[in-house]
């Protein structure tokens, strides 16, 4: 197959592969066959990258297992500190025992939980903390209720535009959709709780500007 015909045939072949359409057998030489196989395999890897787990909040199994943080109930930092003291346990011991149970928790995480009330710790992890310390989980949490800011924040996080921004962020930061959504939610939370009157469109526009600015700094630049 000559060069021009090969370029057109390769496009057709890749299109068919991407769209899972049948293809007629092609008469390819070795190098063409090798390239076709390499590029279709690469297309499969890209496809797999887009078909991992959804964000935790959109995952019904995660919800069932208590992995979706409940913004209305926070892990009470002061109660945790007191409970650890009463149990005669230090922060690194708690981190180690949680790690033994399969949780990816470092000592610095426990320090952070003690320093401030945390709404990002999922109920299942609060339960594990309570089990390790030997406390009722209700005694380790505090009711944060639903403020106007929190409602606005959750409304933004539930939009399709937010999800699209999270996907762009995931590609930029080379991370999972889940972690990307969490990172953007943290930025949203920072702006919402700064005391300004929350506005859905403004918050989304602000996130869009952030993501676009970072995209324009690509390729190959770290954004940390």
């Amino acid at each position, binding site marked *: 197959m000559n060069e021009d015909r090969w*370029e057109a045939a*390769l*496009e*057709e072949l*890749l*299109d068919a592969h*991407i*769209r*899972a359409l049948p293809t007629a057998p092609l008469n390819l030489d070795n190098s063409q066959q090798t390239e076709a196989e*390499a*590029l279709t*395999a*690469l*297309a*499969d*890897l*890209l*496809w*797999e*990258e*887009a*078909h*991992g*787990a*959804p964000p*935790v909040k959109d*995952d*019904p*199994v*995660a919800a*069932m*297992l*208590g*992995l979706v943080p409940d913004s209305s109930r926070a892990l009470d930092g002061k109660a945790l500190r007191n409970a650890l003291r009463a149990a005669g346990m230090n922060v690194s011991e708690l981190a180690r025992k949680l790690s*033994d*149970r*399969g*949780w*990816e928790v470092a000592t610095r995480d426990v320090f952070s939980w003690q320093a401030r009330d945390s709404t990002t710790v*999922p109920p*299942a*992890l609060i339960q*594990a903390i309570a089990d390790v310390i030997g406390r009722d989980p209700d005694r380790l949490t505090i009711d944060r209720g639903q403020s106007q800011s929190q409602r606005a924040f959750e409304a933004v996080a539930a939009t399709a535009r937010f999800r699209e921004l999270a*996907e762009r962020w995931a*590609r930029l930061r*080379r991370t*999972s959709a*889940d972690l990307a959504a969490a990172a953007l939610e943290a930025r949203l939370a920072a702006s919402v709780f700064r005391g300004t009157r929350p506005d859905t469109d403004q918050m989304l526009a602000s996130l869009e500007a952030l993501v676009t600015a970072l*995209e324009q700094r*690509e*390729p*190959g*630049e770290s954004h940390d």
Partner: protein
Amino acid sequence: MSEVPPPDWAALYQKHRDAMYRVAARVLREAGRAAEAEDAVMAAMESLLKSPPSGVTCWEAVMVNAVRWRALDILNSGAARHSVSEDPASYDQQDPMDLASDVAELVDRRRAAGVVRDKLAVLDERHRHVAWEYIARERPRPEVAAELGVTPPRVSQMAKEALRQLHKAMEPEGVRP
């Protein structure tokens, strides 16, 4: 590999859910049913919770294997069901060498997929858009073309160019897709 006590299911799921979704989607993709990956993951977890396997040395292998069988069940629904699917405890009774090989393959693919994700940065914005929206997310070609203000055949050309650039960028990493 020494036996470890069963950790929290929530912790296990948090750690391995991405692998479970990927495996389910991959199995179901050939039948154009990748969107049912969530059903396979849900069914696998329900089975594992109902009858937790014992003597587990590698939970990732067990969970990935469980979801693979459930995805196959979905493909075979209406036809004869695979007997293993009715016995979740047997998920870990597969030949340990096979399980180890499955996990090794999974790890290799995840590594390769991670490199592809990294290398998307070598593409310009428009080719990256085509790579992600058309190739990875399988969005309809006319939609992607309209977003870029080009013709659908041009999207196909850009997809080929993007894959070639990615392939070239991956060569120094020694990663074969």
